[in-house]
């Protein structure tokens, strides 16, 4: 069997990281969100209810991305796997995870649409803006978001392993500073309306396309960094 594909199986040794934690977070945040919506609905508030709960399983992928490197890279070296095989195998595992997540979200969104928010006008999967692009568009959006967040974790872990905590912290602080500068610039040009319009016109699919680009760029940086990393 192809060595790169076997890396997927190696990653899945850590079932807790790749399977259980994401599932538990997904299940728990879903349950909690619906519970809260139910309480509110029964209290007479009509809704519709949107919460941030559906973000949780996505952000978990940050942790999964980090772990996929720190926990498995040294072992992969012991198995005489090349860094390239490890990288692409791990990306494949991430993609599989992202596909499943995207499917869950897309199908969940369709169900929510059909049931009018689980009968309580509460929406977990079907974000208005995303669902506007249809189920396939939504699936693509969630797939890319999942991959992007995974890649952020993986990329951070690679930088950390190769260059250490100081550089990684500096980079993240730098990104934070850039974002703050960006918001300040938008504010000083009073361009908030333009920005939101642009987002709305972009749509979920357009946004996801940019996200995909960012994912590929981070992936490239991670790969190049990994090539000189010692287990």
């Amino acid at each position, binding site marked *: 069997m192809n060595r790169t594909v*076997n890396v997927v199986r190696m990653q899945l040794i*850590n079932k807790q990281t790749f399977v259980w934690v994401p599932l538990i977070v997904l299940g728990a945040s879903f349950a909690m969100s619906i519970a809260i919506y139910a309480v509110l609905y029964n209290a007479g508030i009509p809704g519709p209810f949107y919460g941030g709960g559906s973000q949780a399983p996505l952000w978990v992928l940050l942790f999964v991305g980090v772990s996929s490197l720190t926990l498995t890279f*040294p072992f992969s070296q012991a198995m005489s796997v*090349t860094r390239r095989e490890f990288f692409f195998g791990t990306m494949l595992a991430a993609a599989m995870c992202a596909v499943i997540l995207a499917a869950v979200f897309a199908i969940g969104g369709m169900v929510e649409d059909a049931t009018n928010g689980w009968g309580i006008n509460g929406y977990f999967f079907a974000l208005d803006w995303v669902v506007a692009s249809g189920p396939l568009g939504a699936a693509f959006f969630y797939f890319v978001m999942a991959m992007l967040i995974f890649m952020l974790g993986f990329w951070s872990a690679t930088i950390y392993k190769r260059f250490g905590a100081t550089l990684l912290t500096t980079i993240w602080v730098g990104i934070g500073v850039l974002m703050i500068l960006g918001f300040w610039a938008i504010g000083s040009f009073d361009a908030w309306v333009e920005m939101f319009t642009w987002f709305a016109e972009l749509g979920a699919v357009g946004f996801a396309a940019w996200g995909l680009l960012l994912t590929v760029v981070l992936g490239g940086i991670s790969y190049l960094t990994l090539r000189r990393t010692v287990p």
Partner: protein
Amino acid sequence: MTTATPVIEVKNLTKRYRDTLAVDDVSFTIEKDTIYGLLGRNGAGKTTVMSILTAQNFATSGDVRVFGERPYENARVLERLCFVRESQKYPDDALAKHAFGAARLFFRNWNEELARQLIEDFQLPMKTRIKKMSRGQLSAVGVIIGLAARAEITFFDEPYLGLDAVARQIFYDRLLEDYTEHPRTVILSSHLIDEVANIIERVLVIDRGRIIMNEETDAVRNRAANIVGDANAVDTFVRGREVLHRESLGHVASVTVLGALTAEDRERLAAAGLDVAPVSLQQLIVRTTQHAAARAAASDEGALR
């Protein structure tokens, strides 16, 4: 007799960290189907050399060829190698069976039967998570992978440090048994020299990044002798010979001298009333290493002046 085929060729390998020279212009060849002992003190550079040969670490300069090719990111070469480290990190949730399962996927010569026998020999607990295992059990996992993988070139970097004497003997025995039936190239690094002396065919001694000995074990075995007796008589005898080590207690001196003793020498020694004691491989290598270090320190001092 057997034509020697080099499987690893190292030329002028150097590894420099910020201010230390971990490997200093090292050159050697590793022949096929031979067991090598890579001996040296802690921090001498053994692990660094092996890491570079398996492309886990990178050379600063120099040329490394394994099976005639550069090993870096070379799956064709790397899949024929196995590097068992002293403290290997395993996936967090892994049980021993996961580690062996992965090994079965990646090492084409993996033998499940042998692995099973070794698990029993080492009494490895199959239900304990690797991260919760004792030092000895953790070492056993590495050793089992190294042996059962039957990789064409297998590196053992003091992986048996956590094993007790009984377990170590099991390792040596199984290694010899399997090596006899399925010859391969093995590079064993150790500082327990006397334990592995009878197993290794060639001795590569590395000290402070430099190779100070690269010989057949048997050739080295009678390389030195311990002359013990009256200090004056001893000093007279060793005049003109290279002395590796000298100890004295009152009138009695014990000198380790380099050079095999001829029959004539033995006559002279007997006549002078001096005793000759054999020098074990470990003693020889320890003394040679210390001697080389002393010489280096002396020449450094000379250079500083």
